[in-house]
C-alpha cells in the first residue's frame, strides 16, 4: 500500500501552496475597488474547480493574476523515500533536516538564518554543565560564538557572522546536523 502512502505528500502539497498564494493575493488586492473579496474568492474557486493553473485579469482599474504551480517533475519522480521514512531509525538526521532545512517562508521571512558549515553534532554550550552560548532573546554580533558543532572529536565554534537578536533556535542540544542545516534565526 506504500505507493498510496508515497503519493500523499505530493497530493497535499498542491492545495496547501495554493492556499498560501491565495491569501497573499487577497491581502494585496483587498483594498482595491472594482472586484471585491467575495468575487475574488469565487473567481479563485472557479479557476481551481476547472483545474486551471494560471489566471490573469486586468483592466484600467485592476489587474488580477492567479497561478498554481505545477510540478510535473516531482510527480513523475519516484518517491520511495516517504515509504521508508517511517520505519527508518528515529535518530536519523535526514528526517529533521527535511523539515527544518527550508523553514516555512511565512514564519521565518526576514530572518537571517545561521546554517551549519559542517556535518556534526550540535551543542549549545561549551560543556555539559555550562550555560548555553546564546538563548532566544540574546543579542549577537558577528564574532559572537553561538554554538559548537562537533565533528571528528573536534569542537568547532560557530560564530554568528551577523548582528541582531536570536529569535529562533532550530536544533536541539546534542542533535546531529548536516551541512547547510539551519541552526539559528536572527532578526
Amino acid at each position, binding site marked *: 500500500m506504500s505507493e498510496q502512502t508515497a503519493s500523499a505528500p505530493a497530493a497535499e502539497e498542491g492545495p496547501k501552496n495554493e492556499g498560501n498564494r491565495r491569501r497573499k493575493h487577497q491581502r494585496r488586492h483587498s483594498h482595491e475597488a472594482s472586484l471585491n473579496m467575495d468575487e475574488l474568492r469565487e473567481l479563485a474557486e472557479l479557476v481551481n474547480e476547472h483545474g486551471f493553473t494560471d489566471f490573469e485579469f486586468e483592466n484600467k482599474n485592476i489587474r488580477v493574476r492567479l497561478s498554481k504551480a505545477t510540478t510535473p*517533475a516531482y510527480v513523475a519522480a519516484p518517491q520511495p523515500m516517504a515509504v521508508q521514512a517511517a520505519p*527508518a531509525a528515529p535518530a536519523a*538526521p535526514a528526517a529533521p533536516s527535511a523539515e527544518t532545512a527550508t523553514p516555512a517562508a511565512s514564519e521565518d521571512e526576514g530572518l537571517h538564518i545561521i546554517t551549519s558549515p559542517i*556535518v556534526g553534532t550540535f551543542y549549545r554550550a561549551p560543556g555539559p554543565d555550562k550555560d548555553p552560548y546564546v538563548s532566544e532573546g540574546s543579542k549577537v554580533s558577528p564574532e559572537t560564538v553561538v554554538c559548537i558543532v562537533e*565533528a571528528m572529536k573536534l569542537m568547532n565554534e560557530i560564530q554568528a557572522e551577523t548582528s541582531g537578536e536570536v529569535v529562533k533556535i532550530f536544533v536541539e542540544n546534542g542533535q*546531529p546536523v*548536516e*551541512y547547510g542545516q539551519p541552526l539559528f534565526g536572527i532578526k
Partner: protein
Amino acid sequence: MRDIRKILIANRGEIACRIIWTCKEMGIKTVAVHSEADREALHVKFADEAVCVGGNPSAESYLNIPAIISAAEITNVDAIHPGYGFLAESATFATICEDCNIKFIGPRADVIAMMGDKVEARRTMQAAGVPILPGSPDPIESTEEAAQLAREIGFPVIIKAAAGGGGRGMRIVRQESELHGSLETAQSEALAAFKNGAVYIERYLERPRHIEIQVLADEYENVIHLGERECSIQRRHQKLIEEAPSPAIDAETRRRMGEVAVKACKEIGYSSAGTFEFLLDEDGSFYFMEMNTRIQVEHPVTEMVTLADIVRNQIRIAAGEELYYSQDDVQIVGHSIECRINAEDPVKFTPSPGKITAFNIPGGPGVRVDTAAYPGYTVPPYYDSMIAKLIVHARTRELAIARMQRALDMMVVEGIKTTIPLHRKIMADERFRSGNFSTKFMEEFDA
C-alpha cells in the same frame, strides 16, 4: 566476524544506487551522503537516511573526508562503501576509516597505497610472477637513462606517470630523437596533474586489447576470479563499451590470466573485489597494467555472465566472512555487453548537463539498466557525465549485439544530448561486430 548492519555510501549517482540495492537485499540499512545539488538525487531518495555533507564541488562534498567521517559518526554506521572514483582509491581515507573504527569496504589501506603507485605496483607484481611489459623498474631520472633503456626494450616505447591515470603524463616515443622532448613533457604534465613528476618507461604495444580480470579475495587467502572483461572500446582512455567474455580470449588464456591474478592477490594479501588490468598483445601474450582496488563501473557484465553479486561479495568479505563459492562454481554463461550512456554530445563529447524531460528505460529479456536518472531529473554540471549503464545478456555475442541495438532503440532520453547515437553506430560497425579490434578502435572509428 564484523557485524555490518548499516553502511554509509560515500558516493553518488548510479553506483550509490547500485550499492543501496544490494544493501536492501541483504537487510542492511543505508546512509546516503550528498552535496546541495544532489538533494533530489535518487540515491538520497532510496537510502534509509541522508546527510548533506557540503557544497556542489566534489572537493567540498564527495571528496570532503572530515565531513563524510562526521556523517558516518552521527549516523552511527558500521562501514563505508566508497563506490568508484571520489575516495575509492584513497589510502588516506581508508586509513582514517580504520582509525575511526569504521570498516572501509575494500582492501587494506597499505595495499591501496601500493597499488596507487604505478612503479611500486609494477615491482610488486613482477615479484609475484605477473608478466609485465619490459621497461624501467624505477622512475627515470635522465634522458640518457631513458635512451639506454629504450634501446634495450626496443622502440616504440611509452612514458607514463608513476602516480597517474587517464592519459595525463603519457607519451609514445617511436624513435630516439623524440625521447628527450617527450620525457620533459610527460614529467611536467605528471607534476601538474598528480603533484608527482616521476615517470617510467616501457614497451609500447601497437594494437593491444584492454582485458581485465575480476577477482574476489577474502581475508583467509581464498581467492577466485570471475573471468575477464573486454574493455578495448575506449576514447582517450575512457571506457565506452565493455563485454564479458572477450571475443579474443579462449578458455585456456582465461585460465592462465586468472591464475596469475589469483596468485598475485595471495602474494600481496589482497582482500575484497579487485581488478587486474592487462594489455593483451596480438601474439596472445599479456602484460599487467594496473590493479584497481575497488568496484569497477563495468562490473555488471561480469555479474550477468556469472550471476555473482560483486557488491554483496565486497560487503560479506568486509564483514569477515569467507568466500561462499570456489573457482569451480564459477561458470561463464552467455555474453554480456555494457554501453555507458553519458550526458555528452555524441560527436564532440562535450558535456550536456540539464533537465531530462523524457526518460524511458528498456525492459524485456536480458536487459539491465543501472541508473540514478528519472523523468524530470536534472543532470548537474559538477560531476561525471555518465547517467546510465545499459547492459544486455544473451546466449551469444551476436545475439547480445542485436539485443543491445534493440535496447538502445527503446531507450529514450530527451532534454539533454547523450552518447546513445554513438553506441548505435558502434553496434552497427562491422569491425566491432567481428570482434577483431584493439584499443585503437575509437581513434580509427572517429576518423
